[in-house]
Protein backbone atom coordinates (compact mmCIF):
# COMPACT_ATOMS: atom_id res chain seq x y z
CA UNK A 1 0.00 0.00 0.00
CA UNK A 2 2.62 2.54 1.13
CA UNK A 3 6.02 1.91 -0.31
CA UNK A 4 9.47 3.48 -0.06
CA UNK A 5 11.75 2.72 -2.98
CA UNK A 6 15.51 3.12 -2.81
CA UNK A 7 15.48 6.24 -0.60
CA UNK A 8 18.67 8.25 -0.24
CA UNK A 9 19.06 11.22 2.05
CA UNK A 10 21.76 12.95 4.04
CA UNK A 11 21.66 15.87 6.45
CA UNK A 12 23.75 19.02 6.12
CA UNK A 13 26.47 17.63 8.34
CA UNK A 14 27.13 14.98 5.71
CA UNK A 15 25.92 12.05 7.77
CA UNK A 16 24.20 9.67 5.42
CA UNK A 17 20.86 9.06 7.07
CA UNK A 18 19.24 6.88 4.43
CA UNK A 19 21.21 4.82 1.94
CA UNK A 20 18.99 3.00 -0.46
CA UNK A 21 16.18 2.22 1.95
CA UNK A 22 13.31 0.14 0.66
CA UNK A 23 10.23 -0.59 2.73
CA UNK A 24 6.78 -1.97 1.99
CA UNK A 25 3.84 -1.28 4.27
CA UNK A 26 0.88 -3.59 3.75
CA UNK A 27 -2.72 -2.53 4.16
CA UNK A 28 -4.39 -3.30 7.45
CA UNK A 29 -1.23 -4.64 9.06
CA UNK A 30 0.69 -3.53 12.10
CA UNK A 31 4.29 -2.92 11.11
CA UNK A 32 7.05 -2.25 13.62
CA UNK A 33 10.19 -0.53 12.44
CA UNK A 34 12.99 -1.51 14.80
CA UNK A 35 16.54 -0.27 14.83
CA UNK A 36 19.22 1.13 17.11
CA UNK A 37 19.50 4.88 17.76
CA UNK A 38 20.63 6.64 14.62
CA UNK A 39 19.57 3.82 12.30
CA UNK A 40 17.37 6.25 10.36
CA UNK A 41 13.90 5.58 11.78
CA UNK A 42 12.92 9.19 12.34
CA UNK A 43 14.39 10.30 9.01
CA UNK A 44 12.42 7.60 7.25
CA UNK A 45 9.20 8.73 8.94
CA UNK A 46 9.73 12.36 7.98
CA UNK A 47 10.04 11.14 4.40
CA UNK A 48 6.91 9.03 4.59
CA UNK A 49 4.92 12.09 5.69
CA UNK A 50 6.43 14.27 2.95
CA UNK A 51 8.29 16.61 5.30
CA UNK A 52 11.67 15.59 3.91
CA UNK A 53 12.14 15.00 0.23
CA UNK A 54 14.48 12.16 -0.75
CA UNK A 55 17.56 12.97 -2.79
CA UNK A 56 17.05 9.79 -4.73
CA UNK A 57 14.28 7.24 -4.81
CA UNK A 58 10.61 7.79 -4.21
CA UNK A 59 7.63 7.08 -1.99
CA UNK A 60 4.39 5.73 -3.37
CA UNK A 61 0.92 5.38 -1.95
CA UNK A 62 -0.95 2.73 -3.92
CA UNK A 63 1.42 3.13 -6.81
CA UNK A 64 1.21 6.92 -6.96
CA UNK A 65 4.30 8.94 -5.95
CA UNK A 66 4.18 11.94 -3.61
CA UNK A 67 3.17 15.19 -5.26
CA UNK A 68 5.32 17.79 -3.50
CA UNK A 69 3.15 20.76 -4.48
CA UNK A 70 1.26 22.58 -1.73
CA UNK A 71 -2.10 20.97 -2.45
CA UNK A 72 -0.46 17.62 -3.11
CA UNK A 73 1.27 17.65 0.27
CA UNK A 74 -1.94 18.58 2.05
CA UNK A 75 -3.68 15.56 0.50
CA UNK A 76 -0.69 13.36 1.21
CA UNK A 77 -0.50 14.32 4.87
CA UNK A 78 -4.14 13.57 5.28
CA UNK A 79 -3.55 10.07 3.95
CA UNK A 80 -0.33 9.44 5.83
CA UNK A 81 -0.50 10.70 9.41
CA UNK A 82 2.60 11.20 11.54
CA UNK A 83 2.93 11.45 15.31
CA UNK A 84 6.29 12.70 16.57
CA UNK A 85 8.15 11.19 19.47
CA UNK A 86 7.85 14.11 21.86
CA UNK A 87 4.23 15.18 22.39
CA UNK A 88 5.40 18.55 23.70
CA UNK A 89 6.54 19.40 20.19
CA UNK A 90 3.08 18.79 18.85
CA UNK A 91 0.56 20.02 21.40
CA UNK A 92 0.10 23.78 21.48
CA UNK A 93 -3.59 24.70 21.49
CA UNK A 94 -5.22 25.96 24.69
CA UNK A 95 -7.21 22.75 25.18
CA UNK A 96 -6.92 19.13 24.10
CA UNK A 97 -10.09 19.37 22.06
CA UNK A 98 -8.85 22.40 20.17
CA UNK A 99 -5.50 20.79 19.54
CA UNK A 100 -7.13 17.72 18.08
CA UNK A 101 -9.25 19.96 15.84
CA UNK A 102 -6.17 21.66 14.36
CA UNK A 103 -5.51 19.01 11.68
CA UNK A 104 -9.12 18.65 10.46
CA UNK A 105 -9.47 22.47 10.35
CA UNK A 106 -6.38 22.62 8.13
CA UNK A 107 -8.11 20.22 5.76
CA UNK A 108 -10.77 22.87 5.29
CA UNK A 109 -13.66 20.79 6.65
CA UNK A 110 -16.80 22.44 7.95
CA UNK A 111 -17.37 22.78 11.66
CA UNK A 112 -19.86 19.93 12.08
CA UNK A 113 -17.51 17.50 10.36
CA UNK A 114 -14.56 18.73 12.44
CA UNK A 115 -16.55 18.21 15.65
CA UNK A 116 -17.49 14.71 14.54
CA UNK A 117 -13.89 13.78 13.83
CA UNK A 118 -12.60 15.28 17.04
CA UNK A 119 -15.19 13.28 18.96
CA UNK A 120 -14.25 10.11 17.14
CA UNK A 121 -10.52 10.62 17.77
CA UNK A 122 -11.00 11.43 21.46
CA UNK A 123 -13.09 8.28 21.86
CA UNK A 124 -10.64 6.10 19.97
CA UNK A 125 -7.85 7.18 22.28
CA UNK A 126 -10.02 7.03 25.41
CA UNK A 127 -9.41 10.67 26.39
CA UNK A 128 -12.91 12.16 26.16
CA UNK A 129 -12.74 13.41 29.72
CA UNK A 130 -9.55 15.38 29.01
CA UNK A 131 -11.10 17.47 26.26
CA UNK A 132 -11.23 20.76 28.15
CA UNK A 133 -7.84 20.48 29.81
CA UNK A 134 -4.82 22.46 28.65
CA UNK A 135 -2.33 19.99 27.15
CA UNK A 136 0.66 21.11 29.19
CA UNK A 137 -1.08 20.11 32.42
CA UNK A 138 -1.52 16.48 31.34
CA UNK A 139 0.64 13.57 32.36
CA UNK A 140 3.15 12.32 29.83
CA UNK A 141 1.02 9.33 28.87
CA UNK A 142 -2.06 11.50 28.43
CA UNK A 143 -0.07 13.91 26.27
CA UNK A 144 1.03 11.03 24.06
CA UNK A 145 -2.55 9.94 23.54
CA UNK A 146 -3.68 13.51 22.88
CA UNK A 147 -0.94 13.89 20.26
CA UNK A 148 -2.02 10.66 18.58
CA UNK A 149 -5.64 11.81 18.61
CA UNK A 150 -4.49 14.91 16.71
CA UNK A 151 -3.26 12.71 13.88
CA UNK A 152 -6.17 10.24 14.06
CA UNK A 153 -8.69 13.08 13.64
CA UNK A 154 -7.37 13.59 10.11
CA UNK A 155 -8.50 10.03 9.33
CA UNK A 156 -5.25 8.90 7.76
CA UNK A 157 -5.11 5.66 5.83
CA UNK A 158 -1.71 4.94 7.34
CA UNK A 159 -0.80 6.16 10.81
CA UNK A 160 2.90 6.45 11.58
CA UNK A 161 4.07 6.69 15.18
CA UNK A 162 7.62 7.54 16.19
CA UNK A 163 8.50 5.81 19.46
CA UNK A 164 5.01 5.97 20.94
CA UNK A 165 5.95 3.89 23.96
CA UNK A 166 9.16 5.72 24.86
CA UNK A 167 9.07 7.16 28.35
CA UNK A 168 5.73 5.64 29.32
CA UNK A 169 5.13 3.63 32.48
CA UNK A 170 3.80 0.08 32.03
CA UNK A 171 0.21 1.19 32.51
CA UNK A 172 0.71 4.00 30.03
CA UNK A 173 2.05 1.54 27.48
CA UNK A 174 -0.91 -0.73 28.10
CA UNK A 175 -3.55 1.93 27.56
CA UNK A 176 -1.68 3.20 24.53
CA UNK A 177 -1.55 -0.25 23.01
CA UNK A 178 -5.23 -0.78 23.73
CA UNK A 179 -5.97 2.47 21.89
CA UNK A 180 -3.84 1.40 18.93
CA UNK A 181 -5.63 -1.94 18.84
CA UNK A 182 -8.98 -0.14 18.66
CA UNK A 183 -7.70 1.90 15.73
CA UNK A 184 -6.41 -1.21 14.05
CA UNK A 185 -9.71 -2.98 14.56
CA UNK A 186 -11.39 -0.01 12.89
CA UNK A 187 -9.28 -0.66 9.81
CA UNK A 188 -6.20 1.53 10.25
CA UNK A 189 -2.80 0.54 8.93
CA UNK A 190 -0.26 1.25 11.64
CA UNK A 191 3.49 1.78 11.51
CA UNK A 192 5.47 2.23 14.69
CA UNK A 193 9.15 2.88 15.33
CA UNK A 194 10.61 1.49 18.49
CA UNK A 195 13.67 -0.15 19.89
CA UNK A 196 11.66 -1.98 22.48
CA UNK A 197 11.99 -5.34 20.81
CA UNK A 198 9.77 -7.10 23.34
CA UNK A 199 6.96 -4.71 22.53
CA UNK A 200 7.45 -5.43 18.83
CA UNK A 201 7.09 -9.12 19.54
CA UNK A 202 3.80 -8.64 21.39
CA UNK A 203 2.25 -6.07 19.10
CA UNK A 204 3.36 -6.25 15.48
CA UNK A 205 2.25 -8.38 12.54
CA UNK A 206 5.32 -7.52 10.51
CA UNK A 207 8.66 -6.11 11.45
CA UNK A 208 11.33 -4.26 9.51
CA UNK A 209 14.85 -4.09 10.90
CA UNK A 210 16.65 -0.86 10.12
CA UNK A 211 20.43 -0.57 10.23
CA UNK A 212 22.69 2.13 8.82
CA UNK A 213 19.99 3.76 6.72
CA UNK A 214 18.75 0.58 5.10
CA UNK A 215 16.12 -2.03 5.78
CA UNK A 216 18.22 -5.07 6.69
CA UNK A 217 15.25 -7.38 6.55
CA UNK A 218 11.48 -7.21 6.58
CA UNK A 219 8.83 -9.84 7.20
CA UNK A 220 6.50 -11.46 9.74
CA UNK A 221 7.70 -11.32 13.34
CA UNK A 222 8.73 -14.86 14.03
CA UNK A 223 11.28 -15.54 11.31
CA UNK A 224 12.80 -12.04 11.56
CA UNK A 225 12.98 -11.73 15.32
CA UNK A 226 14.53 -15.15 15.81
CA UNK A 227 17.37 -14.40 13.40
CA UNK A 228 20.09 -13.51 15.87
CA UNK A 229 22.68 -12.66 13.30
CA UNK A 230 20.65 -9.92 11.67
CA UNK A 231 19.49 -8.58 15.03
CA UNK A 232 23.05 -8.41 16.33
CA UNK A 233 24.23 -6.59 13.26
CA UNK A 234 21.44 -4.05 13.74
CA UNK A 235 22.45 -3.54 17.38
CA UNK A 236 19.30 -5.24 18.68
CA UNK A 237 18.61 -8.37 20.67
CA UNK A 238 16.12 -11.12 20.13
CA UNK A 239 13.00 -10.66 22.28
CA UNK A 240 13.10 -12.48 25.58
CA UNK A 241 9.79 -14.17 24.80
CA UNK A 242 11.18 -15.77 21.68
CA UNK A 243 14.43 -16.74 23.38
CA UNK A 244 12.55 -18.47 26.18
CA UNK A 245 10.08 -19.95 23.71
CA UNK A 246 12.87 -21.41 21.60
CA UNK A 247 14.57 -22.84 24.69
CA UNK A 248 11.32 -24.41 25.92
CA UNK A 249 10.75 -25.83 22.48
CA UNK A 250 14.23 -27.36 22.54
CA UNK A 251 13.48 -28.82 25.99
CA UNK A 252 10.34 -30.37 24.61
CA UNK A 253 8.01 -28.33 26.81
CA UNK A 254 6.54 -26.41 23.89
CA UNK A 255 5.41 -28.29 20.79
CA UNK A 256 7.80 -28.36 17.84
CA UNK A 257 5.11 -27.20 15.44
CA UNK A 258 3.15 -23.96 15.55
CA UNK A 259 4.05 -20.39 16.45
CA UNK A 260 6.01 -19.37 19.52
CA UNK A 261 4.01 -17.55 22.20
CA UNK A 262 3.89 -13.81 21.48
CA UNK A 263 2.92 -12.31 24.82
CA UNK A 264 3.60 -12.73 28.52
CA UNK A 265 0.21 -14.28 29.10
CA UNK A 266 0.50 -16.62 26.13
CA UNK A 267 3.87 -17.82 27.33
CA UNK A 268 2.68 -18.34 30.89
CA UNK A 269 -0.38 -20.18 29.63
CA UNK A 270 1.79 -22.42 27.46
CA UNK A 271 3.85 -23.54 30.43
CA UNK A 272 2.59 -26.80 31.95
CA UNK A 273 2.63 -25.62 35.54
CA UNK A 274 2.24 -29.10 37.10
CA UNK A 275 5.09 -30.89 35.40
CA UNK A 276 7.45 -27.99 36.09
CA UNK A 277 6.67 -28.13 39.78
CA UNK A 278 7.26 -31.84 39.72
CA UNK A 279 10.66 -31.43 38.14
CA UNK A 280 11.63 -28.82 40.74
CA UNK A 281 10.66 -31.11 43.58
CA UNK A 282 12.93 -33.83 42.27
Amino acid at each position, binding site marked *: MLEALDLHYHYDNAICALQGLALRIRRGRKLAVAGANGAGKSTLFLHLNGILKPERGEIQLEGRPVDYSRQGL*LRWRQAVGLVLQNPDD*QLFAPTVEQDV*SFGPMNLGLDEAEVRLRVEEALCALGIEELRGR*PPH*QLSFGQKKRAAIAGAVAMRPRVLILDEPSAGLDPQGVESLMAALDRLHAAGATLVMATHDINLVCEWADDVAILAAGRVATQGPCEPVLTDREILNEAGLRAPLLFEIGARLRAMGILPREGALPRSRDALLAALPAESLRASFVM
Partner: protein
Amino acid sequence: MHLRHADIDECVYGNAWRERHASEKLLLAGGMLALAIGLPPFPAALLIAGGMAVFSLFGARIPWRVYLRVMIVPAGFALISAATVMISLTSDLRLEVAPRGAQEAARILARSLAAVSCLSFLMLSTPVEEIVSLLRRLGMPAAIAEVMLATHRFISIFAETAQTMWQAQTARCGYATRRRAWRSVSLLAASLFVHSLDRARRMETALAARGYEGETTWLEPRRKASAASLCAIAGAELAVVVVSIGGPWH
Protein backbone atom coordinates in the same frame (compact mmCIF):
# COMPACT_ATOMS: atom_id res chain seq x y z
CA MET B 1 10.40 34.98 45.27
CA HIS B 2 10.64 34.30 41.60
CA LEU B 3 7.79 33.83 39.23
CA ARG B 4 7.64 30.66 37.22
CA HIS B 5 6.12 30.48 33.81
CA ALA B 6 3.93 27.65 35.09
CA ASP B 7 2.43 29.93 37.78
CA ILE B 8 1.11 32.26 35.12
CA ASP B 9 -0.20 29.33 33.10
CA GLU B 10 -1.99 27.98 36.13
CA CYS B 11 -3.79 31.29 36.60
CA VAL B 12 -4.66 31.58 32.95
CA TYR B 13 -6.21 28.13 32.77
CA GLY B 14 -7.47 27.87 36.31
CA ASN B 15 -8.88 31.27 37.23
CA ALA B 16 -12.50 31.73 38.22
CA TRP B 17 -13.26 33.64 35.02
CA ARG B 18 -11.69 31.05 32.72
CA GLU B 19 -15.02 30.16 31.16
CA ARG B 20 -16.04 33.74 30.53
CA HIS B 21 -15.94 34.86 26.94
CA ALA B 22 -12.70 36.58 25.96
CA SER B 23 -14.58 39.62 24.67
CA GLU B 24 -15.80 40.44 28.18
CA LYS B 25 -12.30 40.36 29.58
CA LEU B 26 -10.87 42.23 26.62
CA LEU B 27 -13.52 44.96 26.88
CA LEU B 28 -12.81 45.35 30.57
CA ALA B 29 -9.01 45.45 30.28
CA GLY B 30 -8.85 47.33 26.97
CA GLY B 31 -11.50 49.90 27.92
CA MET B 32 -9.96 50.62 31.29
CA LEU B 33 -6.54 50.85 29.68
CA ALA B 34 -7.81 53.45 27.20
CA LEU B 35 -9.35 55.42 30.06
CA ALA B 36 -6.18 55.21 32.13
CA ILE B 37 -4.25 56.75 29.26
CA GLY B 38 -6.89 59.20 28.14
CA LEU B 39 -8.36 60.65 31.33
CA PRO B 40 -6.56 62.90 33.81
CA PRO B 41 -4.88 60.50 36.26
CA PHE B 42 -6.57 61.82 39.41
CA PRO B 43 -8.83 60.19 40.32
CA ALA B 44 -9.31 57.98 37.22
CA ALA B 45 -5.97 56.12 37.45
CA LEU B 46 -6.47 55.37 41.12
CA LEU B 47 -9.99 54.13 40.54
CA ILE B 48 -8.81 51.94 37.67
CA ALA B 49 -5.77 50.50 39.47
CA GLY B 50 -7.93 49.71 42.50
CA GLY B 51 -10.81 48.38 40.45
CA MET B 52 -8.64 46.12 38.32
CA ALA B 53 -6.94 44.75 41.42
CA VAL B 54 -10.36 43.90 42.84
CA PHE B 55 -11.45 42.25 39.58
CA SER B 56 -8.21 40.25 39.42
CA LEU B 57 -8.06 39.15 43.02
CA PHE B 58 -11.74 38.74 43.91
CA GLY B 59 -13.35 38.33 40.49
CA ALA B 60 -10.96 36.05 38.68
CA ARG B 61 -9.55 34.81 42.02
CA ILE B 62 -5.96 35.14 40.97
CA PRO B 63 -3.76 34.33 43.97
CA TRP B 64 -2.42 37.60 45.37
CA ARG B 65 1.13 36.22 45.46
CA VAL B 66 1.13 35.72 41.72
CA TYR B 67 -0.58 39.05 41.17
CA LEU B 68 2.00 40.91 43.23
CA ARG B 69 4.88 39.19 41.50
CA VAL B 70 3.54 40.07 38.09
CA MET B 71 2.97 43.67 39.12
CA ILE B 72 6.21 44.26 40.94
CA VAL B 73 8.67 44.44 38.03
CA PRO B 74 6.79 46.97 35.88
CA ALA B 75 5.86 48.88 39.03
CA GLY B 76 9.58 49.09 39.84
CA PHE B 77 10.27 50.52 36.40
CA ALA B 78 7.50 53.04 36.81
CA LEU B 79 8.89 54.10 40.17
CA ILE B 80 12.34 54.67 38.70
CA SER B 81 10.98 56.71 35.81
CA ALA B 82 8.86 58.77 38.15
CA ALA B 83 11.93 59.47 40.28
CA THR B 84 13.91 60.70 37.28
CA VAL B 85 11.07 62.98 36.28
CA MET B 86 10.90 64.43 39.75
CA ILE B 87 14.58 65.33 39.95
CA SER B 88 16.26 67.73 37.57
CA LEU B 89 19.81 68.95 37.03
CA THR B 90 20.32 72.67 37.53
CA SER B 91 22.67 74.83 35.49
CA ASP B 92 25.31 74.72 38.23
CA LEU B 93 25.15 70.93 38.21
CA ARG B 94 23.11 70.40 41.34
CA LEU B 95 20.27 67.97 41.67
CA GLU B 96 17.03 69.44 42.84
CA VAL B 97 13.36 68.67 42.86
CA ALA B 98 11.97 70.06 39.66
CA PRO B 99 9.26 72.69 39.81
CA ARG B 100 5.96 70.78 39.87
CA GLY B 101 8.18 67.68 39.72
CA ALA B 102 6.51 65.82 42.54
CA GLN B 103 3.10 66.39 41.03
CA GLU B 104 4.25 65.28 37.58
CA ALA B 105 5.92 62.18 39.01
CA ALA B 106 2.78 61.22 40.91
CA ARG B 107 0.71 61.55 37.73
CA ILE B 108 3.10 59.31 35.78
CA LEU B 109 3.25 56.76 38.55
CA ALA B 110 -0.52 56.57 38.93
CA ARG B 111 -1.09 56.32 35.22
CA SER B 112 1.54 53.57 34.76
CA LEU B 113 0.21 51.53 37.64
CA ALA B 114 -3.31 51.76 36.26
CA ALA B 115 -2.16 50.65 32.81
CA VAL B 116 -0.07 47.80 34.22
CA SER B 117 -2.97 46.58 36.33
CA CYS B 118 -5.18 46.40 33.23
CA LEU B 119 -2.64 44.39 31.27
CA SER B 120 -1.84 42.14 34.23
CA PHE B 121 -5.50 41.33 34.59
CA LEU B 122 -5.78 40.37 30.93
CA MET B 123 -2.57 38.38 30.94
CA LEU B 124 -3.50 36.41 34.06
CA SER B 125 -7.11 35.71 33.19
CA THR B 126 -7.21 35.01 29.44
CA PRO B 127 -5.23 32.59 27.25
CA VAL B 128 -3.34 34.37 24.49
CA GLU B 129 -4.92 32.09 21.92
CA GLU B 130 -8.39 33.34 22.84
CA ILE B 131 -7.34 36.97 22.67
CA VAL B 132 -5.74 36.42 19.27
CA SER B 133 -8.71 34.60 17.80
CA LEU B 134 -11.00 37.37 19.02
CA LEU B 135 -8.78 40.05 17.53
CA ARG B 136 -8.68 38.09 14.30
CA ARG B 137 -12.45 38.09 14.19
CA LEU B 138 -12.39 41.81 14.83
CA GLY B 139 -10.38 42.20 11.65
CA MET B 140 -6.73 41.92 12.64
CA PRO B 141 -4.70 40.59 9.66
CA ALA B 142 -3.91 36.87 9.81
CA ALA B 143 -0.17 37.48 9.47
CA ILE B 144 -0.07 39.55 12.66
CA ALA B 145 -2.16 36.94 14.47
CA GLU B 146 0.32 34.22 13.46
CA VAL B 147 3.26 36.31 14.63
CA MET B 148 1.55 36.88 17.98
CA LEU B 149 0.87 33.18 18.44
CA ALA B 150 4.38 32.21 17.34
CA THR B 151 5.94 34.76 19.69
CA HIS B 152 3.89 33.50 22.59
CA ARG B 153 4.76 29.90 21.81
CA PHE B 154 8.41 30.82 21.53
CA ILE B 155 8.39 32.52 24.91
CA SER B 156 7.02 29.35 26.49
CA ILE B 157 9.63 27.24 24.75
CA PHE B 158 12.37 29.65 25.82
CA ALA B 159 11.23 29.66 29.43
CA GLU B 160 10.87 25.90 29.60
CA THR B 161 14.23 25.29 27.98
CA ALA B 162 15.96 27.75 30.28
CA GLN B 163 14.39 26.17 33.34
CA THR B 164 15.36 22.63 32.35
CA MET B 165 18.91 23.68 31.58
CA TRP B 166 19.19 25.60 34.84
CA GLN B 167 18.00 22.54 36.76
CA ALA B 168 20.51 20.34 34.97
CA GLN B 169 23.31 22.78 35.80
CA THR B 170 22.24 23.09 39.41
CA ALA B 171 22.15 19.32 39.76
CA ARG B 172 25.83 19.28 38.85
CA CYS B 173 26.70 22.09 41.29
CA GLY B 174 26.93 24.72 38.56
CA TYR B 175 25.86 27.43 40.96
CA ALA B 176 27.93 26.38 43.96
CA THR B 177 30.15 29.46 44.03
CA ARG B 178 29.76 32.90 42.56
CA ARG B 179 32.47 32.19 39.97
CA ARG B 180 30.82 28.96 38.91
CA ALA B 181 27.47 30.71 38.77
CA TRP B 182 28.75 33.34 36.35
CA ARG B 183 30.28 30.68 34.18
CA SER B 184 27.09 28.57 34.24
CA VAL B 185 24.90 31.51 33.38
CA SER B 186 27.05 32.37 30.39
CA LEU B 187 26.97 28.77 29.17
CA LEU B 188 23.23 28.71 29.60
CA ALA B 189 22.77 31.92 27.67
CA ALA B 190 24.98 30.63 24.87
CA SER B 191 23.17 27.38 24.34
CA LEU B 192 19.66 28.54 25.18
CA PHE B 193 19.16 29.99 21.74
CA VAL B 194 20.44 26.90 19.94
CA HIS B 195 18.30 24.60 22.07
CA SER B 196 15.18 26.70 21.67
CA LEU B 197 15.66 26.94 17.94
CA ASP B 198 16.02 23.20 17.79
CA ARG B 199 12.77 22.73 19.65
CA ALA B 200 11.04 25.30 17.52
CA ARG B 201 12.12 23.37 14.42
CA ARG B 202 10.64 20.17 15.78
CA MET B 203 7.45 22.03 16.51
CA GLU B 204 7.42 23.29 12.94
CA THR B 205 7.76 19.71 11.72
CA ALA B 206 4.83 18.66 13.86
CA LEU B 207 2.72 21.52 12.49
CA ALA B 208 3.61 20.58 8.92
CA ALA B 209 2.70 16.97 9.58
CA ARG B 210 -0.82 18.09 10.41
CA GLY B 211 -1.21 20.19 7.29
CA TYR B 212 -0.35 23.65 8.69
CA GLU B 213 -0.32 26.19 5.90
CA GLY B 214 0.29 29.48 7.57
CA GLU B 215 -2.90 29.95 9.52
CA THR B 216 -3.53 28.49 12.93
CA THR B 217 -7.14 27.48 13.28
CA TRP B 218 -8.97 25.26 15.66
CA LEU B 219 -12.48 24.81 16.96
CA GLU B 220 -13.61 27.77 18.97
CA PRO B 221 -15.07 26.89 22.34
CA ARG B 222 -18.85 27.09 22.36
CA ARG B 223 -19.14 30.04 24.68
CA LYS B 224 -21.28 33.08 24.38
CA ALA B 225 -20.41 36.53 25.60
CA SER B 226 -22.93 37.51 28.21
CA ALA B 227 -24.75 40.70 27.17
CA ALA B 228 -25.36 41.53 30.82
CA SER B 229 -21.65 41.43 31.67
CA LEU B 230 -20.72 43.45 28.61
CA CYS B 231 -23.26 46.11 29.64
CA ALA B 232 -22.03 46.06 33.22
CA ILE B 233 -18.45 46.54 32.06
CA ALA B 234 -19.41 49.40 29.76
CA GLY B 235 -21.37 50.88 32.66
CA ALA B 236 -18.38 50.70 34.98
CA GLU B 237 -16.22 52.39 32.38
CA LEU B 238 -18.79 55.10 31.88
CA ALA B 239 -18.88 55.60 35.63
CA VAL B 240 -15.14 56.18 35.67
CA VAL B 241 -15.52 58.79 32.96
CA VAL B 242 -18.37 60.55 34.73
CA VAL B 243 -16.63 60.57 38.09
CA SER B 244 -13.41 61.94 36.68
CA ILE B 245 -14.95 64.63 34.48
CA GLY B 246 -17.85 65.64 36.65
CA GLY B 247 -16.14 65.55 40.02
CA PRO B 248 -14.75 68.52 41.97
CA TRP B 249 -11.10 67.53 41.38
CA HIS B 250 -9.94 70.18 39.02
